[in-house]
């Protein structure tokens, strides 16, 4: 059982460093900071939530907690007080570490603390939020690093750029990858634009970058990306279509390109490295190591050893045989299995999930709206966008003004990506045979 401190002390991990615009933090500095934090606040056996905006502040705490705290949850720094309170109650967290430092939320239950130190801390991640509270998934360093490559390639040094939040599964993968292989990790602090980040990445010769297809499209549209010399490109979080794979191959001709099928619940499923969309049909009989794949009712199912559990809810991730029903629709085309979208109603807007039912109820709570239908529409920039059709409650003179008012009220109640891109006023709603609103 290995923890973050042990990784940084190891021969390879020792060469990890966090590169920020104004400073570089090497492994010994991180270990020293972690030791000071441990000495300042007793972490043993606690269930800790870390709610910090920047990795340079969070990482020393993560190192201090790993192997000491019973569990560590990484929560988004922008999480509302209400959602935070729900999550901490659900997961029985007793300590929070935020911009004000560590503080106790509740009396820690140290009675069942194991006498063996260090033990394997539980790592808790949240799934991307919809309105309301995200779900929490229980992991360990083992499950998080199941597919992490620790070997280093010969040649120029591997330098990772961080584009994801480190509190997200994808961001944590990049961090752990960099730590385990003893590479540099380049990050920014403060509110840096993508352009500034890319300039910073070019300056420090970032060679490895992981992002969602939407973010990659944005990168390709940013002139500062011309300064990047990438050797390894990873895509995840959304369907990687052939367009974006081709564009990336063209722009970064020397780079390896992999798209990853993963979720916070399943962890990393598998990666596809042939620069083609979807995955080879042969994966169904001859899957990559550690997974089994099958198709049931046009949806992909994945079976992994030791699937994770949700924290604080009875909802299950995998069935009794360990199969996870992903709700990702697939289609067999020649020797390929292609991803077609979601079977459930979830709309994926540039990697962020939206539940149309929730947007509908928010719309319907507005005085102007009688009923609403919310659905996804394919979009070349973000994959999907949220659209809404509304039936108005009563007569309104000017469609433009009503729509503007509706939109204004939505900005108070919904996150940016949840607000419908277009709101169309209709005379009648389309209803299907069982009287339900048709979303497709």
């Amino acid at each position, binding site marked *: 059982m290995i923890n973050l401190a042990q990784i940084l002390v190891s021969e390879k991990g020792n060469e990890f460093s966090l590169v920020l615009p104004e400073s570089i933090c090497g492994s010994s500095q991180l270990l020293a900071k972690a030791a000071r934090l441990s000495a300042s606040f007793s972490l043993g056996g606690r269930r800790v939530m870390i709610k910090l905006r920047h990795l340079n502040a969070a990482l020393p705490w993560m190192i201090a907690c790993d192997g000491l705290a019973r569990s560590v949850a990484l929560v988004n720094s922008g999480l509302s007080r209400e959602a935070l309170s729900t999550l901490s109650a659900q997961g029985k967290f007793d300590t929070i570490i935020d911009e004000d430092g560590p503080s106790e939320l509740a009396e820690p239950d140290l009675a069942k603390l194991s006498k063996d130190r260090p033990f394997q801390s539980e790592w808790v991640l949240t799934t991307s939020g919809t309105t309301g509270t995200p779900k929490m998934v229980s992991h360990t360093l083992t499950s998080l690093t199941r597919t992490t490559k620790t070997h280093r390639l010969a040649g120029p040094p591997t330098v990772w750029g961080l584009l994801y939040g480190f509190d997200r599964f994808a961001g944590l993968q990049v961090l752990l990858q960099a730590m385990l292989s003893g590479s540099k990790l380049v990050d920014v602090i403060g509110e840096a634009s993508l352009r500034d980040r890319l300039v910073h990445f070019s300056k420090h010769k970032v060679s490895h970058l992981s992002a969602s297809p939407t973010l990659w499209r944005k990168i390709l*549209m*940013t*002139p500062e990306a011309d300064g990047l010399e990438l050797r390894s490109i990873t895509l995840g979080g959304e369907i990687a279509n052939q367009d974006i794979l081709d564009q990336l191959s063209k722009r970064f001709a020397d780079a390896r390109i992999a798209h990853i099928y993963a979720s916070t619940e399943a962890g990393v499923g598998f990666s596809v490295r042939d620069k083609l969309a979807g995955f080879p049909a042969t994966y169904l009989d001859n899957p990559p190591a550690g997974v089994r794949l099958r198709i049931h009712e046009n949806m992909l199912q994945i079976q992994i050893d030791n699937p994770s559990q949700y924290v604080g809810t009875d909802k299950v991730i995998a069935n009794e045989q360990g199969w996870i029903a992903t709700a990702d629709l697939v289609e067999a085309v020649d020797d390929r299995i292609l991803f077609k979208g979601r079977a459930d109603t979830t709309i994926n807007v540039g990697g962020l999930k939206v539940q149309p039912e929730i947007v509908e109820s928010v719309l319907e709570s507005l005085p102007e709206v009688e009923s609403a239908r919310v659905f996804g529409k394919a979009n070349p*920039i973000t994959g999907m*966008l949220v659209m809404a059709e509304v039936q108005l409650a009563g007569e309104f003179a000017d469609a433009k003004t009503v729509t503007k008012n509706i*939109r204004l009220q939505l900005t108070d109640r919904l996150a*940016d990506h949840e607000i419908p891109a277009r709101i169309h006023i209709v005379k009648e709603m389309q209803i299907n045979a069982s009287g339900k609103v048709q979303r497709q």
Partner: protein
Amino acid sequence: MEIDEVRKQISEEFLEIFTERNPNKKSPELSDDMILLASGLDSLGFAVLVTALEERFDYDPFTESSEAYYPQTFGEFVEFYFQNQP
């Protein structure tokens, strides 16, 4: 449509969406060499613009064109819409 008409309509839609999403900001000067993603319209706003233009023009050049292309400037964006009229 002539390219000037395309530019005029795209500008109108751009400014409308920009104002909708950034009510307290001054709208940018739309010049051909304006970098799209530096205009203050983020990628979500941009996606909304593409959808709005599809409704206005009845075509989406990103779908029409056979090659994936990501315009960087306003001028390139207008040109892309102009070249890919069905």
